[in-house]
């Protein structure tokens, strides 16, 4: 059974870790900081209910994720649905000719799994995710990090149809693929 430490020690013990998670998901320093504080405050209130099955850290990160989902739900309403359409049209035009055939070389990557062992690689991947338009980055997190299913994501992001979702996911992955290729595989 895990026990909680003194809440006063949380900022020292977990402040940075929670902040890194928050920043990754929100990409906004002030907002991330706010959510760290909210997380600790919520944890303080819910302290009696800590069952001790998970570590203190995991428990705190869980609380943060709930807070972030609440935040994203609000933020999604304020983002315009088509903020990034133009940008992705450009990506498609760059990639395919008028008949839908590749215009670019899609070569094999050199030992991709070896990259997973390198700290530099993870920074590159994070940069690529951060470079996505906001809705796409949210989509990446909900689908690839949190592993939510299509119906749930459509609801959270207020998408009218799953076809719409699949198109967005496809563009998002194409863009990430291109970024990794440029920023990592063609460099190493």
């Amino acid at each position, binding site marked *: 059974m895990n026990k909680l430490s003194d809440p006063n020690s949380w900022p020292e013990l977990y402040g*940075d870790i929670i902040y890194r998670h928050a920043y990754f998901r929100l990409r906004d320093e002030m907002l991330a900081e706010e959510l760290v504080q909210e997380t600790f405050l919520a944890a303080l209130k819910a302290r009696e209910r800590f069952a001790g099955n998970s570590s203190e850290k995991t428990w705190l990160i869980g609380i943060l994720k709930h807070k972030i989902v609440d935040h994203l739900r609000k933020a999604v309403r304020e983002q315009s649905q088509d903020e990034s359409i133009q940008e992705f049209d450009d990506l498609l035009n760059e990639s395919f000719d008028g008949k*839908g055939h590749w215009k670019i070389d899609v070569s094999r*990557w050199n030992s991709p799994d070896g990259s997973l062992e390198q700290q530099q*690689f993870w920074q590159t991947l994070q940069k690529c995710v951060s470079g996505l338009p906001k809705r796409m980055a949210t989509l990446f997190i909900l689908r690839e990090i949190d592993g939510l299913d299509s119906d749930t994501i459509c609801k959270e992001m207020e998408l009218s149809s799953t076809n719409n979702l699949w198109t967005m*996911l496809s563009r998002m992955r194409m863009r990430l693929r291109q970024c990794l290729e440029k920023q990592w595989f063609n460099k190493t």
Partner: protein
Amino acid sequence: MMNCKEATDLVSQNLDRQLGLGQRIALRLHLLMCHYCRNYAHHLAFLRRAAANLEDHIENQTNLSLSEESKAKIKQSLNN
């Protein structure tokens, strides 16, 4: 005959849902003949594997930290 643009969409969808039988066959045929799209499929599969592990690496980002001031502020808020 399916083109590469359509094939990339199906390669992506294949990560999110079970494709229909017709789509599966068409995609497989396309991939047999098109090595660029085959590479593309490998790239997306790799991206998924990498994404699954990304969160474990976020905590090691030592260049990203709260300032001492912020920590003190948060600590104070816990005591109010």
